[in-house]
């Protein structure tokens, strides 16, 4: 009996705050359906590791050591699944769309400067900035490679804002564009792409990125390996396994493993709030960057581009593409931007990984 009471005495108010945060994450996952695959395990894990004298903390810490800390295994394996899920056809049909993906990474580098201005060390500032990649595995990988002290806060911010893309992006897009611009119709020229191109694409991209940012080639390499399994046409069962079983299994473990960094003493600090704010800045500036490059291109091209598609250059796939398509239909119910915005969105996937690689090369080196 005394032991039971002793445990109750050991509860701290900080742990109770973490239970509330865990509860909020579970609520958002179940009721609001915001990134439930990640936010639910993270929320439950946050409660689990913040129980007094929790026996689970050591087990989850061990998972963190082998799955994330040693060789970033979980995010990399998840990338194989993501690669197998992505159809790059809209991008291969119109490769110029990749320019928008590149421009929409501006938020990452802008946030790096802002985080530095607020006094974060360069490795932490770069890890915070990578929230703007709008890509969970990339954020985990980069923050771990840079030995950031804020991995948990970065994870929570990255996944929360990815889920909030339908709320974050529309006001920014509307602020940056005129009604006339939002009404611009774009004709979709769906050209066929040869199987040879689809197979060579992941190999070529891996080689190019590997030559520029060898430290991060593992990121793009695993993504493209997954895509090669999908496109080669002779590994259908492996492709299905990567898309479903592998991705689901790793996601379950990844969410609860991240919770090992959500102990009250590590998570409840002023910097966490600052990181959440900077993450939002990253998403906003990403959106701004994508839209503005489209507006600049419109000054030079004959066939006008609807600048809203630039906003889909952030990696949050496919939410961002859907947001742009929906906004287009709101202005003109015959304006179908989905194929263009999907193409930009998948280019954002690649560009965000390249940005992660460049951050590692420039900051980690």
């Amino acid at each position, binding site marked *: 009996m005394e032991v039971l009471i002793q445990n109750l005495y050991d509860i701290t108010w900080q742990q109770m705050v973490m239970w509330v945060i865990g509860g909020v994450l579970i609520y958002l996952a179940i009721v609001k359906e915001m990134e439930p695959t990640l936010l639910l395990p993270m929320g439950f894990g946050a409660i689990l590791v913040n129980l007094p004298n929790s026996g689970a903390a050591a087990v989850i810490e061990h998972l963190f050591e082998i799955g994330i800390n040693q060789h970033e295994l979980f995010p990399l394996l998840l990338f194989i699944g993501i690669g197998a899920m992505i159809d790059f056809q809209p991008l291969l049909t119109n490769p110029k769309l990749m320019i928008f993906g590149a421009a929409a990474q*501006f938020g990452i580098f802008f946030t790096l400067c802002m985080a530095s201005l607020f006094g974060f060390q360069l490795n932490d500032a770069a890890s915070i900035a990578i929230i703007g990649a709008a890509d969970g595995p990339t954020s985990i990988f980069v923050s771990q490679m840079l030995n950031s002290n804020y991995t948990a806060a970065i994870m929570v911010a990255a996944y929360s804002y990815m889920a909030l893309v339908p709320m974050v992006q529309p006001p920014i897009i509307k602020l940056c564009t005129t009604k006339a611009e939002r009404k611009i119709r774009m004709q979709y020229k769906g050209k066929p792409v040869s199987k040879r191109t689809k197979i*060579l694409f992941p190999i070529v991209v891996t080689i190019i990125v590997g030559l520029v940012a060898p430290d991060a080639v593992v990121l793009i390499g695993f993504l493209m390996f997954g895509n090669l399994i999908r496109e080669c046409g002779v590994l259908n069962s492996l492709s299905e396994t990567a898309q479903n079983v592998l991705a689901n299994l790793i996601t379950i473990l990844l969410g609860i493993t991240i919770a090992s960094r959500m102990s009250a003493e590590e998570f409840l600090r002023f910097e966490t709030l600052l990181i959440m704010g900077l993450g939002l800045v990253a998403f906003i500036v990403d959106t701004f960057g994508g839209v503005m490059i489209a507006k600049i291109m419109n000054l030079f091209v004959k066939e006008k581009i609807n600048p809203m598609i630039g906003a889909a250059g952030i990696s949050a796939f496919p939410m961002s593409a859907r947001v742009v398509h929906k906004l287009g239909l709101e202005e003109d119910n015959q304006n179908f931007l989905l194929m263009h915005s999907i193409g930009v969105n998948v280019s954002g996937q690649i560009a965000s990984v390249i940005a992660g690689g460049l951050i590692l090369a420039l900051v980690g080196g």
Partner: protein
Amino acid sequence: MQLHVDYLMEALPIMGNGMLGIFIVTGVIIAVVSLLNKLTEGK
């Protein structure tokens, strides 16, 4: 809260190099994909 302009000055060249790097890599990928599309056209 204190603002660290010296840290910002350290980060600015990274922003410049990073954006330049991403556009260069992207440009190379666009060129290679366009080339691949041309070479495999109609096959």
